[in-house]
């Protein structure tokens, strides 16, 4: 009996997501103790409304990071994609076609990140630092610094329509999570991603086209960033040129908190979902506890470092456990 219990405990501690999950539970308990309203129906609704926007971006960043690359441009694309929708609509293009075109453009810009990185063999950190500045600049140039008029003809309901305390965006987030989990854990492509990020030389030697794997993930990451931007813009019914500023850092933090390795080859989709929840709950909980909102960044910083330390420490211990 004791034997199996220990074995189960060891397996649980070896889960990549374990430290983020523990931190999430602790944070929820602390905020609930500070303010009982934290777990009220209304507040849970508020949190679930804002989580998908970060979560969807972070999922793309996670997939790309597992394949061994980095994307800093997600925050800028997050604004660029909805701005393009406004631009297309104001040019008289059909609203649905405008959405499709803007998403295709995001996909293409992700392809550009990938192409520049892979063709010239430069670090994706550099490529996407560059494109981060370029797309943000483009957003400011196009908008002139002011939010463009938001067309009432845009079909917002399918992305952010209300359903009780939820919005439709949480379903999109759930759907994308399941889909990406499936691709990563249950398909040959997922295996190629782990191999590419884990040991590119070995992956190539076994005939895996690592360039193709990375390119596909660059494109996926940008598509999801653009898509999440559309969700936020539809929820707020405006497109602020500043939206998504700093989002790349939050997305990387959510990814790393969830147990994905910066060096690639290791990571999970579920961990990133937990990481995204953790970040948005800290954000919201501090407000509920009436703490000055400036504390938000401090806590996210602490959570990120703590999660990685915990992860390393817990795994080391669990490995040495005898059972």
């Amino acid at each position: 009996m004791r034997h199996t219990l220990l074995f189960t405990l060891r397996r649980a501690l070896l889960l990549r997501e374990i430290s983020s999950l523990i931190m999430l539970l602790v944070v929820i308990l602390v905020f609930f103790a500070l303010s009982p309203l934290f777990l009220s129906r209304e507040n849970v609704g508020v949190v679930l409304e804002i989580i998908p926007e970060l979560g969807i971006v972070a999922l793309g960043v996670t997939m790309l990071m597992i394949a061994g690359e980095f994307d800093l441009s997600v925050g800028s694309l997050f604004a660029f994609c909805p701005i393009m929708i406004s631009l297309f609509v104001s040019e008289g293009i059909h609203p649905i076609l405008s959405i499709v075109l803007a998403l295709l453009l995001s996909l293409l810009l992700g392809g550009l990140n990938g192409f520049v990185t892979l063709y010239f063999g430069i670090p994706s950190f550099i490529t996407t630092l560059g494109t981060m500045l370029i797309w943000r600049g483009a957003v400011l140039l196009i908008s002139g610094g002011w939010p463009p008029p938001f067309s009432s003809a845009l079909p917002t309901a399918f992305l952010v329509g209300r359903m009780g305390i939820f919005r439709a965006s949480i379903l999109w987030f759930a759907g994308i999570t399941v889909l990406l989990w499936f691709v990563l854990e249950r398909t040959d492509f997922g295996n190629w991603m782990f191999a590419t990020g884990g040991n590119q030389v070995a992956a190539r030697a076994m005939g895996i086209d690592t360039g193709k794997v990375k390119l596909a993930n660059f494109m996926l990451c940008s598509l999801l960033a653009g898509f999440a931007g559309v969700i936020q813009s539809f929820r707020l019914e405006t497109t602020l040129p500043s939206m998504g500023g700093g989002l790349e850092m939050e997305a990387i933090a959510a990814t790393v908190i969830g147990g994905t390795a910066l060096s690639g080859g290791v990571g999970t989709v579920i961990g990133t979902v937990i990481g995204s929840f953790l970040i948005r709950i800290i954000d919201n909980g501090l407000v509920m506890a009436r703490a000055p909102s400036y504390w938000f960044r401090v806590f996210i910083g602490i959570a990120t470092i703590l999660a990685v330390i915990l992860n390393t420490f817990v795994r080391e211990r669990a490995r040495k456990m005898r059972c």
Partner: protein
Amino acid sequence: MERKNLVEMVNIHKWFSGVCALRGVDFSVGYGEVVGLVGDNGAGKSTLIKILSGVYPPDEGKIYFEGKECHFSSPREARMLGIETIYQEAAMVPKMSVMRNIFMGRELARFRVGPLAYLDIPRMEEESMKALERVDLRLRSPHAPVDELSGGQRQGVAIARAMYFKSKLVILDEPTNNLSVKESERVLEFIRELKKQGISSIFISHNLYHVYPVADRIVVLSHGEKIGDFRKEETSVEEITKLMVLP
């Protein structure tokens, strides 16, 4: 060319930016034969093997595999013909499970949806355990990450993989490097197992004492030239050592 050898490399030359790495080397491997390829660092062992495994083409010379002339333009082509090369650090992805490593790039699928194949995990579990048993490697679970295995066990997994995918020739690049005596002994066992299954192998090492016990034939390279090619019963460790240390 008559089909008496699996591999026949004839008069192979290779230059790297004006430096001659290989100078008219003839090299052959018979069916089910274990060939030890020895020589000091820089003797041309890796260059010869990289030409045979499709990493780069020879500048001169011909390669015959199963009697047919071959021009490999990539390692993938060589692998498709049944030439599997096991490089030390390039063979495995440490953080991935044994099962995922064995089937990396050649996953078993239950069905395909567009560009994706749905993995048949139960079958991959079963097949990977079977493959490991064939080299007498007993692991608790096919889901153990490779970085929890010892160096010798990793070589075992790589060899099990080569066997499973019906390779005809397995090339082992310094498989006993950095291994303890006991672990090296296990690797030699794996190579004997390959021979039992009728699979030819090339065992590259700068350590003659590792090669000698398992090799049927020993080829010595020095400064890009073949300076010795002996059947084991016609030679001795002393003779080859003398040859290797000659300037």
